[in-house]
């Protein structure tokens, strides 16, 4: 690849709206001196494979995809940037309103609905948080809802199904990402439905991942132009709104520590 060619960024097409998002980002980089194009994948496994094979220069990775790239590169890959919202991601443990639970210990002997098995926020990290609270093994009955596997929970569908399981009394509680909790209007729009009984510490979610082979002189202008996207600029804001952020920021790598622990504890395989 010559330096005159645009950087090729990979993303996973988890909804039709991914197309206008990336077309908007591509257009933003036009004539910036750091032009880019994009390629969409059907799942994160394929995307990480393409990054490792050099088919794409940069991958827009979930936290699990980042962890796997770290594993496959022996820690040599680089995180370039993330959304401000990626630095403060959380998992919310919710039960029916009025349950009156005060923490994870109240889950002992109860049924917890989890989202897709490859969703860090709705499956992998919740199990880690339970383990950290001393709720290993059979202490909590896990109801796994594996929908849209491969997309690492991006569609949110499995988390909504987990909430439905609680409403329909097939589960006593559910673990969902903060984004899903906010999408349902927190506890304001569904009176008498849910209340949060435990909120996880913050952790990092998605990031742009590159291999060490990508020269710094190519990637640096791209990162600088990305960080220059401005919420107050009417031309930039629709893209930021669609992608769910107000500001691109430099990555916070210590926010992945809990996920690496979870992957180690749960022996998460390196490919899905």
């Amino acid at each position: 690849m010559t330096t005159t060619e645009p950087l090729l960024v990979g993303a996973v097409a988890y909804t039709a709206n991914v197309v206008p998002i990336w077309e908007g980002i591509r257009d933003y980089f036009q004539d910036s001196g750091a032009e880019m194009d994009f390629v969409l994948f059907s799942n994160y496994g394929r995307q990480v494979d393409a990054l490792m094979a050099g088919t794409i220069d940069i991958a827009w990775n979930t936290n699990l995809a980042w962890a796997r790239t770290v594993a496959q590169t022996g820690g040599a890959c680089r995180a370039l940037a993330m959304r401000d919202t990626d630095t403060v991601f959380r998992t919310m443990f919710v039960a029916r309103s009025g349950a009156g639970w005060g923490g994870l210990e109240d889950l002992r002997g109860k049924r917890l609905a989890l989202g897709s098995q490859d969703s860090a926020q709705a499956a992998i990290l919740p199990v880690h948080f339970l383990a950290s609270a001393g709720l290993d093994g059979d202490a909590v009955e896990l109801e796994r809802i594996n929908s849209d596997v491969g997309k690492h929970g991006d569609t949110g569908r499995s988390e909504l199904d987990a909430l439905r399981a609680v409403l329909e009394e097939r589960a006593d509680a559910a673990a969902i990402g903060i984004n899903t909790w906010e999408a349902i209007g927190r506890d304001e729009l569904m009176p008498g439905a849910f209340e949060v009984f435990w909120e996880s510490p913050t952790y990092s979610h998605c990031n742009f991942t590159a291999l060490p082979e990508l020269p710094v002189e190519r990637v640096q202008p791209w990162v600088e132009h990305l960080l220059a996207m401005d919420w107050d600029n009417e031309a930039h804001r629709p893209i930021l709104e669609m992608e769910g952020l107000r500001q691109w920021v430099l990555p916070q790598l210590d926010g992945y520590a809990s996920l690496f622990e979870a992957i180690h504890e749960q022996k998460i395989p390196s490919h899905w």
Partner: protein
Amino acid sequence: MTNGWVLDLVERVGAAARGATVSVALGSADPGDPGRQAETVATWCRLTGNELVEVRDGVATVRRGRSPDPLAELDPGQLPGTRLWMYTNFDCNLACDYCCARSSPRAARRELGRDRVRQLAAEAVDAGVTELILTGGEPFLLPDIGELVAACTTLLPTTLLTNGMLFRGRRLDALRGMDRTRLAVQVSLDSATSEAHDRHRGRGSWDRAVVGIRTARAEGFRVKVAATLPPDQNHELGPFHDFLDTLGIARDDQVIRALAHQGFAEHGLELTVESLIPEVTVTADGVYWHPVSANDPDQLVTRELFPLGAAITEVRRRFAEQRARATAAAQWFPCA
């Protein structure tokens, strides 16, 4: 009530392409407060950056993302309320067989009158109107046409529509007294020769209209010519433009409009609230969507002429709402 349908809303709208609409059944409403579901959907849309199209019969229709402001999409000159049309009167010395206003010598005058024209012009300035257009009927049948026009031209640039046939005696004096720097005179003329024009407007009317155009031009007025063209006359457009050139009418002032199926017209374009970009139009009976439909009860916006600003706001609101509905309908129209 747990509003479990919120989960369906999140899932269905989340999976929809931006701009697409999704309909979600809300289940049975709380009989004590049927509006609460709609409020909840509206709140959810506000929180999540989506647009509520409607809640009807227990089904919410939501657009993914927000549709662009239909008013912002218009050419600035098309923004409803930029121009204000006033029907000064409905009686006319002609009885054109396609008149959208149903004007004729037998039509009731239904005049706006000096006081209302003066108040409308003043409120138009405050409402951001940049041009006034006086039409009828034939405005020169009004004995106080000079005062009506002056009430307008002192405040805003004005166009006066006329058949141009009455510029004699006191009416010519009235014309001569009008402000040439602020007034354009728009004369109706349908063809380059008398035949087609007279067939719809009456024998001898073409000759007199052409004389009227020459008179107004000679008096120093900017003259526009507006033609109403049935489809079978489309082939005459070229010669017609050439003829108007010989009268000294600037090409930009040669206005050709299609025959509308309104008023007396038995044929023509079907013009509805849905198909017309509104042009706020005031008659003695109320505020209408567009001057071509000032007798159409379906296009009556309000019977309250004042405050004018409120009427303009209402027209804009209805236009934005109607565009949103049309966009939604286009999105959900099934192929099979």
